[in-house]
């Protein structure tokens, strides 16, 4: 069916609305070149490597606590670490084999943190996991049971923020969600992991969305998707008719539309106030990757131990979308895409806007890795910064309505009160300001560091009160 749709699209039989009629968020935003090199490529399944390194802190919140010991034999899907608090997530083995050691390992944070090393031996899955491809639509579980299953499977936000999903699905008392927004925007340039997932698992994503609606007792869900993925929009629109209450909403392209607050603004025209959570406006946002993981966890009993990762870059021989086991070293992925090109200057975990350069290719893929981007030396060079010319471009593009140049100065001169007063903690670190600055000022570098300091100040103030 996908082929027919693609043919129709290529013959321009499917009409995609023109960009101007579509909605987007209101404040700021930029239009970086898309460079979606791996778009339309099928998801290639990568075999498990010789050894996986599974970090215990793959999510926001308390790190998980290991429940296995050196020498323990595990199967694919065995629980190896339990959630270490309310905001935390379970971690399951992505391979079958023997636990080699529990030791510190370098992860994408750039620091060494505890991780479980597992030597791979064969590929034996837990019996409870349904490995068949058949689509399971029916679900007789209650809302609570669905959330419990999601928590059990260790699902976290797979767009990159890695916030434990079950926490999002248990709204604080007094607040009630009335809309589920599925984030299929993928506004980061280069990345195509979500796009390829929609093309191959559209039905599963729609079932996952209806499961989510059931879990939080909501009768409306909107899948927000940018207009640069017409094939995915067409496919979802074709299928969504069979699912009650799910709408597909093509959105005007603009970065950072995938930001939670920006997407709520674009899709539902609601503005989440400074410092508030999306639930205050009755919205729950989930990434498509997360929705697919929810489908697999609830309907197939499969915990989260693999994900789609894009490996891309202009000099990469074969930019691809891979389905990889969590804990696979990045070097394995890069080799599968044709190896590291000679002129590589930076290897980035994530996209070019929000991603972070890696220190080493031994760093493992985690639940939040959506892409590995290899930049050439020329691309990765930073131009020397000059003085601020007061053009105000950064203020124009900031999607949170902040004043980046003021926040940078406040951080530079350690004026934390000024920074806090100007909502430095609202910064989503999208990088629009630094992208647009004609003087190449390192705005985000400073703001990120200042945001951390101000958050610490607020935390200690709360603790002492």
């Amino acid at each position, binding site marked *: 069916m996908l082929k027919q749709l693609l043919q129709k699209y290529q013959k321009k039989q499917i009409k995609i609305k023109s960009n101007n009629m579509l909605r987007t968020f209101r404040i700021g935003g930029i239009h970086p070149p898309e460079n979606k090199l791996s778009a339309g490529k099928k998801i290639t399944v990568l075999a498990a490597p010789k050894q996986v390194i599974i970090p215990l802190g793959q999510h926001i919140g308390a790190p998980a606590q290991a429940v296995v010991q050196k020498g323990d034999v595990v199967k694919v899907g065995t629980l190896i670490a339990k959630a270490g608090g309310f905001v935390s997530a379970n971690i399951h083995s992505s391979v079958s084999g023997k636990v080699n050691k529990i*030791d*510190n390992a*370098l992860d994408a*944070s*750039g*620091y*060494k943190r505890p991780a479980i090393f597992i030597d791979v031996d064969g590929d034996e899955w837990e019996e409870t996991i349904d490995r068949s491809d058949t689509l399971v639509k029916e679900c007789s579980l209650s809302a609570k049971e669905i959330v419990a299953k999601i928590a059990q499977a260790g699902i976290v936000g797979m767009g990159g923020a890695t916030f434990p999903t079950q926490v999002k699905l248990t709204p604080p008392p007094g607040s009630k969600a009335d809309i589920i927004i599925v984030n299929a925007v993928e506004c980061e340039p280069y990345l195509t992991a979500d796009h390829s997932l929609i093309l191959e698992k559209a039905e599963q994503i729609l079932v996952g969305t209806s499961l989510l609606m059931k879990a939080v007792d909501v009768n409306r869900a909107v899948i927000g998707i940018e207009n640069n993925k017409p094939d995915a929009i067409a496919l979802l629109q074709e299928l969504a008719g069979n699912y009650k209450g799910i709408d597909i909403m093509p959105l005007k392209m603009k970065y950072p539309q995938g930001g939670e607050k920006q997407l709520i603004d674009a899709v539902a025209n609601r503005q989440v106030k400074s410092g508030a959570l999306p639930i205050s406006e009755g919205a729950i946002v989930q990434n498509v990757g997360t929705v697919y993981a929810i489908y697999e966890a609830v309907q197939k009993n499969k915990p989260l131990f693999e994900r789609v990762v894009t490996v891309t870059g202009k000099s990469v021989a074969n930019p691809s979308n891979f389905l990889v086991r969590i804990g696979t070293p990045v070097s394995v992925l890069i080799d599968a895409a044709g190896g590291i090109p000679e002129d590589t200057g930076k290897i980035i975990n994530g996209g070019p806007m929000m991603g*972070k*350069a890696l*220190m*080493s290719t031994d760093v493992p893929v985690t639940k939040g890795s959506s892409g590995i981007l290899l930049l050439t030396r020329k691309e*990765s*060079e*930073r131009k020397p910064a000059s003085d601020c010319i007061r053009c105000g471009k950064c203020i124009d593009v900031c999607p949170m309505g902040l004043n980046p140049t003021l926040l940078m100065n406040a951080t530079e001169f350690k004026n934390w009160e000024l920074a806090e007063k100007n909502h430095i903690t609202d910064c989503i670190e999208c990088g629009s300001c630094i992208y647009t600055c004609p003087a190449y000022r*390192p705005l985000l*570098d*400073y703001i*990120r*560091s200042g945001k*951390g*300091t101000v958050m610490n100040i607020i935390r200690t103030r709360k603790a002492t009160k």
Partner: protein
Amino acid sequence: MILIAIILLGAIGAISAIMLYAASKKFEVYEDPRIAQVQEVLPGANCGGCGHPGCSGFASACVKADTLEGLLCPVGGMPVMSKVAAVLGKEVVNTEPMVAVVRCNGTCEARPRINSYNGVKKCSIASTLYGGETGCSFGCLGFGDCEAACNFDAIHVNPATGLPEVDEDKCTSCGACVKACPKGIIQLRKKGPKSRRIFVSCMNKDKGAVARKACTNACIGCGKCAKECQFDAITVENNLAYIDFNKCRLCRKCVAVCPTGAIHELNFPPRKEVATPTADKVQPATAPKAVTTTAPKAEVKAPAAEIKASEAEKKAPVAEATAPKISEETNQNKI
């Protein structure tokens, strides 16, 4: 006419005087005159190193306190504190002067760069992104946040080693660099008699082999120094040794046994050859009490030999490389 004007003005003046007098009595804010006197004696750097908001805050704290115990102006040190005591008529409380020490000796040679950072050259910003350009994520980043924070021009990054160096004469132990360092490698320690100090110049908490791979000068947590120390001054926790400066008697035995040279000694006279027992010479000058506890040379060597044997069994790679030298080089400064 003139008379009326004089009387009127005089009356207004008198009424105003009474009002002002009443107001000054009613709204009077009493400030101890001694606060100003104490403030005059203080250096006026307003660095906050004493823990009070500026020099006036420290002055009023001194006036209010019953004794001067626990109050020290790190910038002025004991001379200023004795002046303060004289102003207030309180007893001088001897507080040992402190000084900043840099607990990283990962020089460019010892700690090879494995990647390069091209972001903002500030430690606070680099540390939000990753562990650093070398394999050691605990060590100095070398961008000089400490240098920028110092008000007294007392700490500078040496371009040859990439590490900050403290100028002892200028350092006032105000602690600004300690707060500025995101890696927490700068610590305040007792200045010690004749400025002699011994400290572990490393913060690496990785396991021995990992630490050694990243930096040849790293503390590998082998525990030789802790075994050697007769005063229980050294503890090894998380693969890292720490010397308690309150217990250390500056005998320098730990410096000699350290296989990687992570323990540093400062301002000691150069060590002499094996023949003369240096320990006896050093100790009377530094810690008079230690004389009685210091064992004669022959006995000192015995435990070192024991450690050599036991260590060689346990930790093959490190012990082999360094242990045989210990007995010969006990009295040589290896750093």
